[in-house]
Each structure stands twice: as C-alpha cells, then as structure tokens.
C-alpha cells in the first residue's frame, strides 16, 4: 500500500488568519504545516496547544486538534495531553513572554522532565498583544511603553534556560528563513523528548526590525552561522571564517590567517551530552560572534511520557490488585455477620 501523501492544505483550518500583514508568524506557520504534511501523519494525530499572545492564536489556524489555553500554561496543558495520549504528536506555540515570564516555571520543568513535546518559542522580544511592553528577552536599555527610559534588567537567552534545565534539544531559526525553519522543525519532531525551537521573529508593529542586524542581507553571511551536526562550523561571505577553541576559549578565526587551517575548525556535534560547547554556541552574540542557528543540541535521554507508561506496565506485570473490587477487599478488612 502506498503511503498517503499530505499537503500543506491538509493542515490549514477554515479560519481566516488574522495576524498583522507582514508578521513573521505567517512564515513560521507555513513551515510547521509543511513539516507536518511531510511527516506523513494525518492531521487528527496532531494536537497544537498554545497559551496567550499573538503567536498563541496558532491552533485556530490549524486543521489539527487544538487547545488555546491561558497565559503561560500551554506547556503544562500540553504535558497533560501527551501523558494521557503519548501516541499524539503534540506541538506548543508560545512566545517570549508566555514561555519565559508568566510561564517560566512550566518552561523549565517541562525541559527537566523531557516530555516529548515540540515547542516553538516565537521570540520577538516584545509584548505585541498588549501593544508594546518589554518582555523577558528585551535587550537591556531598550525603550518600550513600560520602559520609557530604557529597561534596567538583563534579558533571558532561551537556550541558556534550556541548558540550565538539563534540556535535550535546542534549535534556533528565524522567521524569514523558511527553509531553515522547516529543517529544524522536522528535527524537533523527530527528537524524542522536549524540543525547544527559538524562532527569532519580527513584530512589524511594536518592534519592527528587532533582528535586522542579524538578517541584513549585506552582512548576513558574517553575522549568522548555520550549524549542522557533523559539519565544520564555517561561515562568512566566502566561507573563510570558522569557530575554533583557542587557549580554551571559543573564538572566531579566519582560515589561512595566523596559521589556522581547516583542521582547526570545530566540527558541530549536536549529540554530545556535555552541554559546555552547546552553551558557548548559544551564547554567541554580535558583534564579536555570529549568531548560531540550526540544531545546536539534540541528545538522547529518557522521556517522561514513555517512562510513565513503562512504569505502569512494569507494576502491572506483577500486580496483585487488578481491579477496584480487589482494592476494596485488600489489606485489613473484617466481616460483620
């Protein structure tokens, strides 16, 4: 029997999409729908769960099962969905505020448990739905409606939280790069455990151009490095630059200068359990480093929802109590005649 081929249309709902014209969310949704179609899994086997924020309207635009929940709680609700039915492929759409401010606790504990969810963090470094207040990823000093003189707090880097919470999968993409988004979403879906994908996303209305420094076509090659497992960490207009460890520190080097040869360039190992280099890659920032994209970390570890079923199965193998009537009559009972 031939496998059924799905198309992107199979994953669109009848609802009119109501994000602002030019919003980065459109491209992200397209990428998700294409990945879902390519996976060959029918739409009813997917559940898309979201919290509150612009990105959280996501489920309404999908033809899958969907639950638009409350602010910050998507990951907790999705954890319940996945534990109840591990057979479902569960996606979470969340934003920087939803995931790392009001929902911060659920974010780190989801990662710690390693429940098999695919989480897209739409990071536009601003609160869009409430019209322009700073978020937990807004850069220090940035002026917004609630920081008219600039923020006086440092932002979270989502990847640092993933590593800090013992995460098994972290990838980064950017809304304008549909191909890269598809590639990392497909990897996220394949990964067993919690997959966190940070997508740098533009908010046309309240934070337009927030990622321009990274995306500017004139400098893109110098400012972005796309990491792929097993490939050398090379970037630059003519692929002349690379990342190397020099005297114990991660450095940008140029091949051919200062005696650097291609052999000195690091080869990306996303599967390495030791998170040290992954963290260094996550932390890279302009102007001294390019920003890292692609699957930065993808390591195998035990998965909570699987273990939950396995543990129940193990206990049931040798169980003495097989039904409620057994339980009611177990232990210390006595008969009154």
């Amino acid at each position, binding site marked *: 029997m031939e496998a059924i081929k799905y198309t992107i249309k199979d994953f669109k709902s009848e609802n009119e999409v109501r994000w602002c014209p030019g919003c980065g969310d459109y491209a992200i949704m397209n990428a998700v729908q294409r990945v879902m179609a390519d996976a060959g899994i029918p739409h009813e086997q997917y559940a898309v769960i979201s919290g509150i924020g612009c990105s959280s309207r996501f489920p309404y635009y999908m033809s899958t099962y969907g639950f638009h929940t409350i602010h910050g709680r998507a990951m907790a609700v999705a954890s319940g969905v996945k534990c109840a039915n591990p057979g479902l492929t569960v996606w979470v759409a969340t934003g920087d505020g939803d995931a790392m401010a009001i929902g911060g606790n659920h974010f780190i504990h989801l990662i710690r448990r390693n429940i098999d969810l695919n989480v897209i963090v739409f990071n536009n470094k601003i609160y869009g739905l409430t019209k322009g207040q700073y978020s937990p990823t807004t850069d220090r000093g940035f002026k917004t409606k609630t920081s008219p003189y600039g923020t006086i707090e440092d932002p979270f880097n989502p990847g640092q939280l993933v590593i800090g919470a013992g995460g098994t999968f972290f990838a980064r993409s950017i809304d304008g790069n549909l191909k890269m988004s598809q590639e990392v979403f497909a990897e996220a879906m394949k990964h067993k455990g919690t997959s966190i994908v940070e997508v740098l996303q533009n908010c046309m209305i309240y934070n337009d151009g927030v990622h321009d420094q990274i995306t500017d076509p004139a400098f893109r090659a110098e400012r972005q490095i796309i990491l792929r497992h097993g490939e050398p960490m090379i970037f630059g207009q003519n692929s002349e630059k690379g990342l190397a460890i020099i005297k114990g520190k991660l450095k940008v080097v140029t091949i051919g200068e200062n005696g650097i040869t291609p052999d000195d360039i690091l080869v990306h190992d996303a599967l390495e359990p030791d998170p040290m280099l992954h963290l260094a890659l996550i932390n890279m920032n302009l102007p001294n480093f390019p920003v890292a994209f692609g699957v930065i970390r993808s390591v195998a570890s035990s998965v909570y929802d699987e273990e939950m079923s396995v543990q129940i199965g193990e206990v049931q193998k040798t169980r003495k109590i097989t039904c409620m009537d057994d339980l009611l009559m177990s232990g210390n*009972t006595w008969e009154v005649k």
Partner: protein
Amino acid sequence: MKEAKVIELEEVAIRFSGDSGDGMQLTGTLFSDAAALMGNDISTFPDYPSEIRAPQGTVAGVSGFQVQFGGKQISHPGDLAHVLVAMNPAAVKANARFMNPGGTIIYDEDAFNEKNFRKAAFATDDPFTELNLNDMVRIGVPITSLTQESLKDLGLDNKSILRSKNMLALGLVCWMFNRPLDYIEKFIRNKFGKKNPLVVESNLRVLKAGYNYGYNLQFTTPQYLVNPAPIQPGIYRNINGNYSTAWGLIAAAEKAGLKLFVGSYPITPATEILQALSERKDLGVKSFQAEDEIAGICTALGAAFAGHLAVTTTSGPGFALKSEALGLAVMAELPLVVVDVQRGGPSTGLPTKTEQSDMLQALYGRNGESPVVVLAASTPSDCFWYAYKAAKIALERMVPVVLLTDGFLGNGSEPWKVPTMAELPEITPRLAKDSANYKPYARDPKTLAREWAIPGIPGFAHRIGGLEKSITGNVSHDPDNHQINCEIRENKVMRVIDMVPDLEVYGQDSGEVLIVSWGGTYGHTLSAVTEMRKQGKSVGLAHFNYIKPLPANVADVFSRFKKIIVCELNLGQFATFLRSTVPGFEYHQFNKVKGLPFTVSEISEAVNKILEA
C-alpha cells in the same frame, strides 16, 4: 490481687498526645484500627501542628490524635476525651480544655520534671493544680524508664530506645480497653519486617511491657469495657477521607471505562490523596506531581482534553492558584474534578486545622460568569461516594465539579462497609460518535452538555480555547452570542439538579428548629440533634452534600420549620448563599472558626438559645 475496677461505657474518647516527634499519630491510628477490628464503630481526629518538629517539649510542638469508639453508631470523634495519654507536661497543657470532667490522664512521670515544666511555660512545678485538673484520675507511669529498662540488653543507643516510648503507652492503653495486641504486632512485623528485625524486637518488647504494666498495676487503673457496636452485616475496613476520596475517583474511572489522571502539587491536608493515587499504578492511575498548583490543574485539563478522567487535588491556597485554569475548564466545557480539602484560612492560615471557609471561593472565586458544580462530602467514608459522584457529573455533563472535603474528614477515619463495583451506578461519558455532524459546542437539548471528541480520532479534529466561541469552537466576539453562552453555562450547571437527590430531614420532619449544616460537620450536627431529641426538643437536621445546584425541595423543607439555624465552620458562607438562592427565610447562624470541629454541646447550646429567644 485486687479486682480491677471495670467501667462499662457506650463510647469512649481517648486522646494520645506528645511531642510531634513522639509518634502519637501512629499510636492513635494503630489503636483505632485495633478497636475497629474488635467490631467497634470509631471516629478519629488527628490534631497536629504545622511545624514538622516544633521545639521539643513546648506547647506549640504538641501533636494529638483523638479517637472515639463505642458500642453504638459513632458519628464524631467526641467533644471531650475520657482518657488523655500525655507524654510530657506540654501535652497536658495543650489538651486540658479537651478533657471530660473526671477523666483519666496517663502521663509519663519521667518527663514531668523542672526542665519540661519550664519548656511548657508552667509557673509552678504542679501542672495539674495550675490547670485545675485535680478532679482527674491521674496515673503517672514511668514511660521513659520502663522503655529503657525493657530494651537495656539490646545494645541500642538511647535515642533509638526513646523512639519506642509510644509503644509503651499503646500497650498500656490496649490493656485498659481490653484490646488484644495481635493486630498491632502484625502491623509492626509487616512494617519493619525482615529489613530491621531489631526494630521489630524493640517495638514488640516495649508494647508488651506497656500491656503487662497495665495488667500488673490493675489496682490503680480503671479498666474500660467497650462493647462491639450493632452495625450492618458486611465486609468492613477502616478508611480516612483522603483515601476514600482517592478510591472513589479510581472507581469512577473504572466504571466509566477511562484512564484516571491526577495532576497535583503537595499541600496539607490534601497531599495524601495524591499519594493514595500514586500508589495505584497497578490500576493504571497516571499521577503527575506538578511543579506548582497551576501546573497541577493545567496538566489535568490537558488530560481531560485528551480523554482521561482528570482530577486535581488541593487545599484552600492551592485552590486559589487554580482559579484561572478552572475558569478555562468552565469555558472549554471539559470534564474535570477539583478536590479541595479545606483548611483554616485565609492565606496560609491554619494548614493542619479544619475549616469550611472555601465554599464561596468554590462557588464564585473566578473571573467572569464562571459556574461550576459544587459538592461536599460529610464523613470520611462517604468521600468515596461524593468523589465518585463528582466524576459522574463531570463526565456526563461535561462540566468541572468541585468537591469540598476538609482536614477533619481527610485525616479522620471510620469503619466503612465496602461496596462492590456492581453496586455503583453506571457512568456514561458523552463521547462523540457522529463525525459527520460533529460540532464541539452542539448540545444535548435536555442537559445542555456538549459532546467529547478525543484527539487522535479521525473526523473530529476541532479547536477549543478560553476565548468566547461559537458552536464550532471558533472565536466569536458577537455580543448576543456571549450573553447566550453565559446563560447556557449557568443553566447547564443548574440542570444537574436532576442528578441531585432530594434533601432529607433527620429527626423531626417539621417543628420548631431546623439545623442546617453541610459537608464535614455532619457527625457533630447529627449527634446534637439526636441528643436534643432525647431531651424532647422539636429539632430536625437538614444536612447538605449538594451545594450547586441545591436539591429541588429545599424551600419546601425550610418552610416546615419555625426557625432555621445554619451551623458552619466559617463566618456564614452557606447562610449567605442560602439568603440569595433560597430567599424568604430568616437564617440564624452558628459559626465557629477556631480550626476545630464543632462540639456536640456547643451546637445544642446554640440551638437552645434560638429556642428560648
């Protein structure tokens, strides 16, 4: 040897009391189980401090466990104790006010020394005079030194030896109440078994030493005989309210043919329900100890969306944290059971003490028009039935249900005639079957309940959420639609009335005074009515388990009495609710917020005042 003084009683209340590290809860539980096995009806009341180990020897650190057992139906753990077992002076101080006049105090005379008098803040070296307890039968027993003596050749360090002190007291009390030690011996062997034979040996030795001490000193100890209670034939077990709640939920899932999911966060006094459910992996229960109360209810809600019988368990402060997500359950119309084991509030309040002050929170504590079904259990064992019923209503009507129990019910235990699954009513979840015509918010015209379509099943894919929606589940901001939906959600809850039995009146069917109570006060209000009727008073009792919706015949019952007095462990929440939902009556109130259950005598007093007014 002189003949022992034997006292025959219908019912006896014993209070075990000592430092919170003295093992008084275990001592009390073991004695209660032994009494129940002898065929007594029992009711227990653990009363412990919220600090796990408050400073030793102080009044703040006293932990108590009261059990009443007897030869007739026992509805409550007893207002006042006949016997107090006090392991130190602080225990006497903490419990003096709970003693029956002429009662017996058994105390560890080794612990009655200068140091401990100061720790318990006695002004003199004569605590009994200071507390005006000289009319009590006082029995000083060298509990500490007897324990040390019986274990001296076992090579244990002094700390380990002292840990067995509670067994000496237990053995002594077993002798006093003619309870054989078999059950307790079996328990100790099973608990410490092969792992720690030395612990088994030391505990058993001390237990027997206590028993024998009682036997040898018969001439100074009045012995009590309590005869077995006349109860219905059947298989019985002892159960506390938290366990019976957990088991009721498991039973409901089995009956409904669903998996049970519990998402909870530990909180006193509800934690034990989560523990009891976590023990039941053999029955396939999925237990999820969440990172916080919010994640507890949210994971449960996710499991409800995915087709499980979903439950979250908590107490007042945790219930407050769950409010927003409970509103989402109302809006999404998913089946969910929320158990609130109420404790003293507000805020952290009195974590280990009982209260009934979350009723209005359950009814109204959410943003927007957010109706839920509210039930309240009334005894430790009927928590089983009301948990079962809560699940039945949630699954058949696609509505969140709040079950209110309380610390008194949760920790208290009583013998329970166990049901069989065959005796329990069917539960039929509203699973969607017709995919061609499925609309997430299409409703049964009679009950207004929607259908439940489980993710993974082809043909039913749909989206739901916290925004106001149309029949398709899609977002709607239409003004008329919002009004209609608010009314539907309210009416859907009110139509659960067809699953609510009529209110029954105990005692007089009509007359001078109707006592109205709800939830965990049942044992005390019932006993009060029974006693007052013996005195020829014209009194009835209407006890409520269904709060929203109320039973259909409430106004009819109320109209048959001249006066109504609402007795509750808060400042008048049910009375307030009744004034607005069953208007036209004058509701007198009797309220107590001391973190303690009612006593029968204070209820009688309150009713007498109303009768005389």
